């Protein structure tokens, strides 16, 4: 056996006459090669004392040098000469030095030096002779310390590592890399703080997930066995890929801190997508299929989150995200081949890779950190975050109140986390699939009642986006929007009050009253979830318009974009509220008649209203604001104590506030009184939605007045009678705060408890029936879901089982099928038929739920009347004897929203009906007749749809015009977001 024996002095015994030499006898093969064999041992040899007296100062170089070839990877940065000079100074003898790059570039980078040049790294590696044991790959610009290679070789031999990386430091002594830890997704993590200096704190040889590609020592045979470096990858990704492949072959990957390299080049931004793409490819090459099954989708999802969150941090990674995944799709065949090569002959599994990886996602952690940093930079004041500022703020009431505000929101919204929005009144859960909701908004089918082609409200689009972003999580989207709107409302109010130099603490108090006060509770009580969410946007809309505009034209354009976006969001959440800012700011401008900013704000609000309205396409073109404002009866019963407290606060603010704040308080008082009037304007024909909008205005006015009083007291403005009046005002503020706190026990941001989920869940008792059927809900109109229709004074409406979602809240205009239902109900009510089940089966109605108590002393008159109607039917069976929410189920079979001519019912899945294909048969879709229903051949009957059952699918073809408009809106939102973000960055 041709073995090589080499060893190192590992210990010098105390007597100074013995040394311990560890040795290894090796064949030319190593771990990672085809047949690694070795023999290890140690020997204790006697030596003359005079020969080892300087042992600690002796070179640690083994008596036999392992031959090392150096490859310098050039990048045209013109620093090759420095690198070559550093290589010349290595105490470890180099067998050869070659450069990778263009010959011209190398000559230019190292004038007067004679260096062998290879065009690619692979050529350079292949050009190394078999006598070479190690390859040292160094990037251009790296300046290895003289003993860097020596230390690397020593640690490579001592630890039997296949790959050894150097510690990388900047010229200023800051640490750049001491090996890399990656997460499961291959995202590198140095673990170093920014500007962390090298003080020897990491000087331990240790196994790492990957190594920096700045200076890398590899066993030549290992590299050869691995097939070299993946040249298609960016440097960072290539280093991780190489390390992972080496580890699969059983090789150790270690960092040698004693091997120090100075390197200062920053990563180039233009290759970020290549790094991302390479990282994905590296995962696909290294991991088992089982691991890839969850890693790849999760990585995609995390990337999506990064794209979205980065927008708020002023970055846009959408294109990089798309390019990186697109690249991988294109290169998938190549990746599969590389994967085959990487995993052939492996001696370790995924668990070996996981050992050196960080738990969780580096990207998510990084985003969280950046988000928090961005948030801290804005809270509680305008000052930038700093330790000093933290200390200062923590001593301020604002900080304490800020924490309390966050805690308040967390407590006030806690039940949304587990249950989402309660199903009650106009508040219904978000659709289970966000894409379906978005598709429905963009020209799809309106599922409310018996369906309609009328556009859905934009709130559904918001819900759809929230669902998509949260990967259709059950309640997360609703929690994020509910709690987020509340926080945004508090924060926005704080920022709005800064317009008048009102500090953070009063702003936070005002925010609390704004989002949770009696008026906000009134909105929640009306269950107008859109207006409740819009509370989180309204102060921002006002702030963006009232804030002084800079001289810079670009800044103005950016502001316009931000205003348009904000108004659009406001209108999407609550269309009527979109019309509020113009009169509000108009009144403000009149009050502050000499304030140019106020008039500019009016112009901005006009532009914002117009632009925001356009963003509500396609819905806006069919919107009827008059009927929207007149549905129901606006009457908000004012709690007497709240009324008195409100008057006290307003009077105190107007009378005692100094300077311009008095006028602002007057404006706030005007808003409050107009809000009160609007919220009780049922006598003038206004309805509940108008009432909610009026309450939002009232809440805004009250919050501003509260902020002014709190500010005046905190700033100890004036004295004498002013102070006395303000103290009385503080009493009113205290009452308003106390009233705001009452929403906390419910934990639903003030919304009432669930009504429909508990009432309709029974429909799931028999598997499959709920998806095939509808529920006829009757009773007092205020107990029914969303809009309702009326027949002979009795309210009714049809909803999907098991529980209707937000898409079904608003009923469209009555169409033929709705009219037929009304006729059937008339027939049933008049007693002309006693087979209501059979009559209603035509509409896919399987169950009838009489909301409210229909017997006993608490019985609702309407509930009793309806119950008596359905109690007198021959083909309806009562499901419950309870007096509340009585349920009847039809005795008729089959019942289905989509029935084939073979009487098979197709379940509703998403926004379509999907069932068993029935060649040659037809399917009857119990929706209002519309040509959009297919597939053809179709026959639109007078009252419903009859289509082919050939494919087993019944879908609605979206209105192309509406869809085009929706796409344009999407593009406009992206452009406006970019413009607004870009403007902010410029500022």
């Amino acid at each position, binding site marked *: 056996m041709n073995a090589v024996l080499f060893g190192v002095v590992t210990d010098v015994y105390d007597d100074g006459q013995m040394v311990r030499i560890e040795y290894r006898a090796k064949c030319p093969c190593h771990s990672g090669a085809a047949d690694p064999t070795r023999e290890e041992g140690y020997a204790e040899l006697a030596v003359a004392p005079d020969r080892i007296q300087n042992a600690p100062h002796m070179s640690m170089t083994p008596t036999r040098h392992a031959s090392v070839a150096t490859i310098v990877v050039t990048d045209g940065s013109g620093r090759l000469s420095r690198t070559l000079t550093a290589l010349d100074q290595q105490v470890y003898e180099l067998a050869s030095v070659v450069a990778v790059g263009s010959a011209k570039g190398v000559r230019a980078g190292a004038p007067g030096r004679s260096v062998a040049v290879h065009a690619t790294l692979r050529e350079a590696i292949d050009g190394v002779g078999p006598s070479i044991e190690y390859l040292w790959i160094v990037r251009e610009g790296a300046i290895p310390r003289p003993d860097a290679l020596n230390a690397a070789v020593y640690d490579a031999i001592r630890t039997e590592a296949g790959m050894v990386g150097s510690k990388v430091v900047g010229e200023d002594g800051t640490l750049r890399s001491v090996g890399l830890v990656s997460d499961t997704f291959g995202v590198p993590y140095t673990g170093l703080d920014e500007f962390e200096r090298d003080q020897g704190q990491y000087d331990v040889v240790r196994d790492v997930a990957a190594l920096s590609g700045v200076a890398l020592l590899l066993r030549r045979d290992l590299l050869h066995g691995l097939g070299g470096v993946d040249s298609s990858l960016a440097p960072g990704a290539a280093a991780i890929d190489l390390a992972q492949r080496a580890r699969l072959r059983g090789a150790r990957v270690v960092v040698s801190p004693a091997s120090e390299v100075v390197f200062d080049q920053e990563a180039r931004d233009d290759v970020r997508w290549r790094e991302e793409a390479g990282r994905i490819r590296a995962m696909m090459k290294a991991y088992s299929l089982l691991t890839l099954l969850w890693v790849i989708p999760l990585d995609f999802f995390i990337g999506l989150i990064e794209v979205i969150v980065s927008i708020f941090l002023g970055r846009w990674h959408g294109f990089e995200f798309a390019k990186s995944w697109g690249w991988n799709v294109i290169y998938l065949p190549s990746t599969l081949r590389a994967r085959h090569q990487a995993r052939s002959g492996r001696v370790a599994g995924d668990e070996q890779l996981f050992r050196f990886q960080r738990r969780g996602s580096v990207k998510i952690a990084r985003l969280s950190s950046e988000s928090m940093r961005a948030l801290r930079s804005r809270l509680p004041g305008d000052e930038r975050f700093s330790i000093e500022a933290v200390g200062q703020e923590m001593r301020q009431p604002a900080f304490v109140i800020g924490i309390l505000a966050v805690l308040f929101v967390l407590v006030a919204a806690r039940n949304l986390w587990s249950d989402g929005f309660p199903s009650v009144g106009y508040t219904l859960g978000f659709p289970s699939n966000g894409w379906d909701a978005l598709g429905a908004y963009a020209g799809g089918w309106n599922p409310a009642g018996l369906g309609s082609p009328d556009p859905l409200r934009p709130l559904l689009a918001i819900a759809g986006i929230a669902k998509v972003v949260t990967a259709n999580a059950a309640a997360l989207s609703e929690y994020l929007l509910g709690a987020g709107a509340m926080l945004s409302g508090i924060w926005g109010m704080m920022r709005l009050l800064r317009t008048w130099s009102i500090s953070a603490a009063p702003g936070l108090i005002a925010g609390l009253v704004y989002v949770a006060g009696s008026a906000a509770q009134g909105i929640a009580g009306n269950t107008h979830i859109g207006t409740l969410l819009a509370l989180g946007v309204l102060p921002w809309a006002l702030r963006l318009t009232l804030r002084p505009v800079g001289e810079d034209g670009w800044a103005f354009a950016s502001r316009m974009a931000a205003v348009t976006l904000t108004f659009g969001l406001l209108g999407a959440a609550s269309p009527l509220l979109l019309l509020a800012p113009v009169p509000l700011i108009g009144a403000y401008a009149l009050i502050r008649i000499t304030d140019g900013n106020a008039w500019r704000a009016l112009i901005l609000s006009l532009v914002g209203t117009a632009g925001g309205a356009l963003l509500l396409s396609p819905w806006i073109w069919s919107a009827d604001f008059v009927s929207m404002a007149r549905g129901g009866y606006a009457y908000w019963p004012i709690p007497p104590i709240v009324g008195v407290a409100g008057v006290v606060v307003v009077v105190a603010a107007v009378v005692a506030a100094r300077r311009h704040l008095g006028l602002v308080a007057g404006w706030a008082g005007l808003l409050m009184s107009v809000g009160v009037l609007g919220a009780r304007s049922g006598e003038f024909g206004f309805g509940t939605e108008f009432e909610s909008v009026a309450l939002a205005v009232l809440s805004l006015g009250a919050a501003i007045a509260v902020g002014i009083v709190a500010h005046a007291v905190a700033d100890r403005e004036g004295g004498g009678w002013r102070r006395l009046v303000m103290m009385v005002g503080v009493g009113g503020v205290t009452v308003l705060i106390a009233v705001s706190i009452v929403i906390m026990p419910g934990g639903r941001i003030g919304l009432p408890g669930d009504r429909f989920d508990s009432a309709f869940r029974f429909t799931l008792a028999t598997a499959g029936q709920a998806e095939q059927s509808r529920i006829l809900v009757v009773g007092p109109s205020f107990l029914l879901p969303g809009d309702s229709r009326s027949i*002979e004074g009795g309210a009714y409406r049809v909803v999907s089982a098991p529980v209707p979602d937000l898409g079904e809240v608003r009923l469209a205009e009555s169409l033929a099928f709705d009219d037929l239902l009304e006729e059937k109900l008339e027939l049933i009510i008049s*007693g002309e038929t006693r087979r209501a089940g059979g009559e209603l089966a035509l509409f896919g109605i399987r169950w009838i739920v009489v909301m409210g108590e229909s017997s006993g002393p608490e019985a609702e008159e309407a509930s009793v009347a309806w119950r*008596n*109607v359905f109690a007198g039917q021959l083909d309806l069976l009562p499901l419950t004897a309870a007096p509340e929410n009585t349920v009847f189920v039809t005795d008729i079979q089959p019942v289905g929203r989509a029935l084939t001519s073979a009487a098979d019912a197709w379940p509703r899945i998403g926004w379509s009906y999907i069932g068993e294909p029935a060649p040659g048969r037809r399917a009857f879709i119990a929706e209002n007749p519309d040509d959009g229903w297919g597939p053809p051949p179709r026959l639109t009957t007078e009252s419903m749809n009859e289509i082919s059952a050939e494919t087993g699918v019944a879908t609605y073809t979206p209105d192309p015009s509406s869809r085009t408009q929706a796409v344009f809106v999407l593009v406009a939102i992206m452009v406006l977001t970019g413009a607004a973000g870009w403007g902010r960055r410029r500022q």
Partner: protein
Amino acid sequence: MGAETTMRRTLLLLLAGFAAAFGFIQVAPPIEPGPNFGTTDIVVQDGAVSSPSVWYCPGIESGDVVDTDVLVVTHRDVDVILTLLDPVANVAPTVDSFTIVGPGAASVDVGKIMRRGESPALIEISDGPAAAASIAWAESLLAGDRCVVSVPKVWYLTGGSTRVGTFTELRLFNPFADVAEVTVTAYSEFGVDLVPELDGLEVAGRSWATIEMESRLEFRDELAFTVTSSRGLVIPIIVRTDDRGEAIWPGSAPSSTWDFPIVTLGGLEPFIAVLSASGADIVVSLDIVTETGVVLNARQITLDSSAPALIPLADLAAPPFGVRLRATAPVAASVIAVVPVEDIDIVDVFGDDLGDDTTTTEASTTFIRGMAGTVGIATPSSAWIVPLTTLPNNETTLWVMNNGADPVSVEAFALGEVDFLGVESFIVAPGTIVGVKVEVGIGIYGYHVIADGLVSVAWEMSGERGAVLVAGVPASE
């Protein structure tokens, strides 16, 4: 500047105060009345309409002695589904279906479908005008009336009694699936008779409850009831029996006028039982309508609000005659015909001396069997559907009453399973009644009566088996 600001503030405050005050004085929305549909508090007169209908027949019974004929008459071709409830809970009802070619009539012998005693039924007829009736019969029994089609929340039933030898039952039929909760209020000559157990009585879905009154309200000469549903619906009938016969009739409507085209049959003594539905001191007048003319105000009484009245008729005219009841306010009314008291052997059941004033009469030479009762007709009509039947040894007569001022030409089409079985054309003079004998044994199961004026129609059957009085059903055509 300061003064201007102060002025502006004051102005704003005033403006805000004015708007707020205006808001404060706004009123809450008026409380909207709830819907009132589906069922009415007051019964609607049964009628045969030109649409599908469901008829409820609580009086069906079929056992080893008693049999019941279900009679259906229709103008159009119809499919009929007869659903007979089972007395055992949760057992599927017995369903029979058949077709009638209209205009036509059919009779279904329930005994051929099932024999399990009481078995209320519902009859679904796919088109109209159509009507149904049920007649129970046995060797010595004849009872029945038309079925009902409207299902109100409040029913009025008059003509009951628990005098010695007489028994009264209420049968509450709930054909629907939902549980019904009803309150039965009893009225007797003593006024309102409180029976706590009949308050909030539950009748399970698709079942019936029979309430026997003997044990609850003993020795009442006159009994009347209201049945009020607080939840669900029931169809009640009253079943009155004595040792000579049985009579069954449904609830009646409150009305200010009632027509009884015939009250005399089979030698029975007729009475009109009335109950106030609208207060006290209602003056009730009876006109006797005979084959030759009318006796206006033949009898007049003043009705108390909570006590029923039983008005004897036998002494007012010689049979046959009908009665027109007029009242100053709505009343519920029915006719009840019983064996005259002088024809009943009074038996000293207690073995006591009944005293000097107790007279024991001699048994009559002709044995009279039967008891009959029916509800009246609130509104005359020009078209009638009359489900009827004939039985051997019994005589069936169709009676038409004209209470108008002009003579009315009437055509009575006899209907059976095979088209028209004959037509009788006649004129009914003002204030008279006309009887049409129905031929027995040729398969007549109903009549379609068309007149050129408003008339009221009923039929009666009497003979060896007993007697039965049945009101006709006004048709919409």
